[in-house]
């Protein structure tokens, strides 16, 4: 939908700079600050730089600096000196939380601020989170100041709950905040999908298969004389093939994109059997699948590996506290990684998205290699969606976080946040309260 949607993060591309300029301008509009304005050159030096990449891609960490030209990283490494001396601080891509309600939900118990859970309809593929996303949410500046750069924003409720989007925590308009829309269609398995019209897991699976069967992928041109529409494709069920074909509805178009792998299927599943069901349905219908949650994923790591489905695990600290997660354990991410499954991490609670660093650190304590943990909360998950967000590479948007130590350690503070080459002010609701009350009057 947005002029800067996917393009701003796709490697290379002529539209990159234009997208970034829009992004920087939106930050300026949001903050009223003169800081935004990414023209020209800017250098940050004397830093430890974590790239947000996986070890298989080469070095994951460099020392030196970053040179930014027009909001894009022009050079990284020991050769970059001068500019702003960071005094040995750490530069890293910041948090990209892959499965959150940020921008949709501000206060959990205030219904008027909750737009994350649609109810009453098991199938709403045409629903889009960008229609509810609030770029003026006061939650976003709090998250941003603590290093959260963006999130895969997902709706909850229903079996097919609508279309997710990758959104930034900065940007004064929905368009400016949008990184990728739609990012995929969210499908809830397990008890999360039970609701309108179903009472059991098997009911959810049956209705999901029914819906997938009713919306086969459109035929390629020439394959069929008639336009490829859902009505036509399902005409075996409905008599009157001679009737002029109606244009497909919005929801039919989404189904078609899903069935023809133009749109990802984002399965939410935690119990091992639900994770396997996601793998099975993805295989039966040739879906481009990502699995989110996977609290018991370690139990079916081999199946996930052979299905080659990326898994966004989380939270790392999910407990064996519900009937969905009876076999949850801290080393879930480590075991999946060791089995060769591509993983990212998510935290789930939008207010605590900043704690994804702690979650990643805990995964390290329980066996996940540290470089893999850094990548799992920055570059990996956007990468599953074809995005380069969360990785610091030459030619990419210069968006990163500066902190005074290991970003995964709880004692570490965020010092600067840079989006599209421009520093974003860190003031927010909480810092304003602190300033007001740090001395009692």
């Amino acid at each position, binding site marked *: 939908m947005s002029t800067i949607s996917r393009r701003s993060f796709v490697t290379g591309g002529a539209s990159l700079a234009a997208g970034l300029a829009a992004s920087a301008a939106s930050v300026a509009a949001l903050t009223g600050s003169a800081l935004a304005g990414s023209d020209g050159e800017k250098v940050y030096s004397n830093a430890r730089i974590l790239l947000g990449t996986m070890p298989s891609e080469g070095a994951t960490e460099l020392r030196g600096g970053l040179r930014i030209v027009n909001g894009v990283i022009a050079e990284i490494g020991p050769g970059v000196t001068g500019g702003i001396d960071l005094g040995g601080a750490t530069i890293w891509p910041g948090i990209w939380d892959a499965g959150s309600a940020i921008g949709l939900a501000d206060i959990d*118990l205030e219904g008027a601020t909750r737009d994350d859970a649609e109810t009453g309809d098991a199938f709403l593929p045409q629903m889009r989170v960008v229609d509810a996303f609030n770029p003026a949410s006061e939650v976003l500046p709090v998250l941003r100041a603590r290093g959260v750069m963006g999130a895969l924003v997902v709706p909850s409720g229903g079996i097919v709950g609508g279309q997710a989007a990758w959104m930034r925590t900065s940007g004064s308009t929905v368009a400016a905040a949008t990184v990728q829309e739609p990012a995929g269609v969210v499908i809830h398995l397990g008890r999360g999908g039970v609701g309108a019209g179903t009472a059991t897991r098997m009911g959810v699976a049956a209705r999901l298969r029914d819906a997938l069967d009713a919306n086969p992928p459109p035929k390629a041109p020439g394959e069929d004389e008639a336009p490829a529409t859902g009505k036509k494709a399902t005409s075996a069920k409905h008599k009157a093939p001679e009737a002029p074909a109606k244009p497909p509805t919005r929801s039919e178009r989404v189904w078609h994109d899903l069935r023809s792998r133009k749109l990802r299927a984002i399965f939410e599943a935690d119990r091992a059997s639900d994770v396997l069901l996601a793998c099975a349905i993805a295989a039966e219908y040739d879906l481009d699948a990502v699995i989110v949650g996977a609290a018991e994923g370690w139990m079916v790591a081999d199946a996930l590996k052979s299905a080659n489905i990326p898994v966004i695990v989380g939270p790392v600290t999910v407990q064996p*506290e*519900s009937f969905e997660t009876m076999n949850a354990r801290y080393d879930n991410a480590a075991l999946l990684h060791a089995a060769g499954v591509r993983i990212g991490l998510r935290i789930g609670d*939008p207010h605590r998205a900043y704690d994804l660093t702690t979650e990643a650190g*805990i995964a390290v304590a329980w066996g996940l290699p540290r470089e893999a943990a850094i990548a799992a909360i920055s570059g990996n998950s956007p990468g599953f969606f074809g995005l380069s967000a969360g990785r610091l590479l030459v030619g990419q948007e210069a968006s990163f976080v500066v902190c005074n130590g290991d970003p995964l350690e*709880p004692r*570490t503070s965020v010092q600067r946040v840079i989006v599209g080459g421009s520093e974003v002010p860190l003031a927010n609701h909480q810092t304003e309260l602190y300033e007001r009350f740090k001395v009692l009057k």
Partner: protein
Amino acid sequence: MSLLIALLSLPLAAAHDLAIQHATVLTAAGPAIVDGTVIVHDGVIAAVGVGVPVPAGAEILDATGKFLIPGIIDPHSHMGDYSWPDGGGHGDGNEATEPFTPRVWAGDSVDLEDPAFALARAGGVTTIQVLPGSANLIGGRSVVLKLRPRRLLDQMIFAAAPAGIKMAIGENPKRVYGNATDDDQIQTRMGEFAALRAEFQAALDYREARKRASPPPRDLDLDVLLDVIDDKILVHLHCYETNDILGFYRIADQFGFHIQSLQHGLEAYKVRDVVKAHGTMLATFSDWWGFKLESWDAIPQNAVLATQAGIPVSIHSDSASFVQRLNLEAAKMIRYGWTEDDALKSVTLWPAMMLGVQARVGSIEVGKDADLVLYDKDPFSVYARVQRTWIDGELVYDRAEAQ
């Protein structure tokens, strides 16, 4: 009953000596001891220091490179009362039938088979206070447990702990009773305070009536409230906003009782002078916020500002998950101005004081219970893992055996 007493008098841990050597000992009672030794005798800390002689026959544990801290204490838990897996069958934390249920006792709901207990031990937790939930203005009495793996509740109860009671003010009671159809309806904060005043006045009236020749029958609720008024029970108050904190002090001042702790108290920083003047301690979250309107003004500096005002601050969990990582929740506060020692005390000595058990636990000092946690790294590092947990000298978690 005699059988129970016999069971309780059995030595629960084999009487033996343990020497933990070469550890960095963070005592919560003074500076860190590098290359320290801690001697445990019959479940009690017998010696602490550098180069302390080891008794003959003692089991020796070489803790070179490791960190020893006092057992972690969580003053706000619902473990056992909301046993895992969660669900209606395990929902035993809120007797939400009427706004005043001081007669109920959280110990009666505790499910000894709650798997969360073992995971808490693996997180270095040795003592917890199980509180009733916050649906009611006065929810009932708490129980303080030592997390010994036991089959009988009496063997887990921390017998030295004084009685405590949970009170609550603000959104939760009015949400629960705002739609009540009977006399229990409460729709506003002023309604909550009016109900509290009436209830405490009823207790005073009851006390007078009980002195008459023909006294009214015993009222178990009002008996407990008279103990509150007489400061025989520690009052732990669930609250968030300043108006709730200040309003409850008006009630406490009017009826002459002490508030031992604010539980959550996310806006305590705004009225920390008042909290300090009342001698109230604070148990709060690290940086949780936004889960309800009354948590919207939470700031991560709450604990730090309260500490600067001279209030002993605990970091509590209110969660059977976060209790396993209270060391990391406390570590986050270092970022906002706490020292390592503040962080350590916030999960050991200060909660011990809040529960009235500081003479027995909360620091590594001679004569205290040998409730200890050994980490492989600095306990405020996210990469640290608990290696062993002891309660009264008994090894209750051993990472080597858990794997």
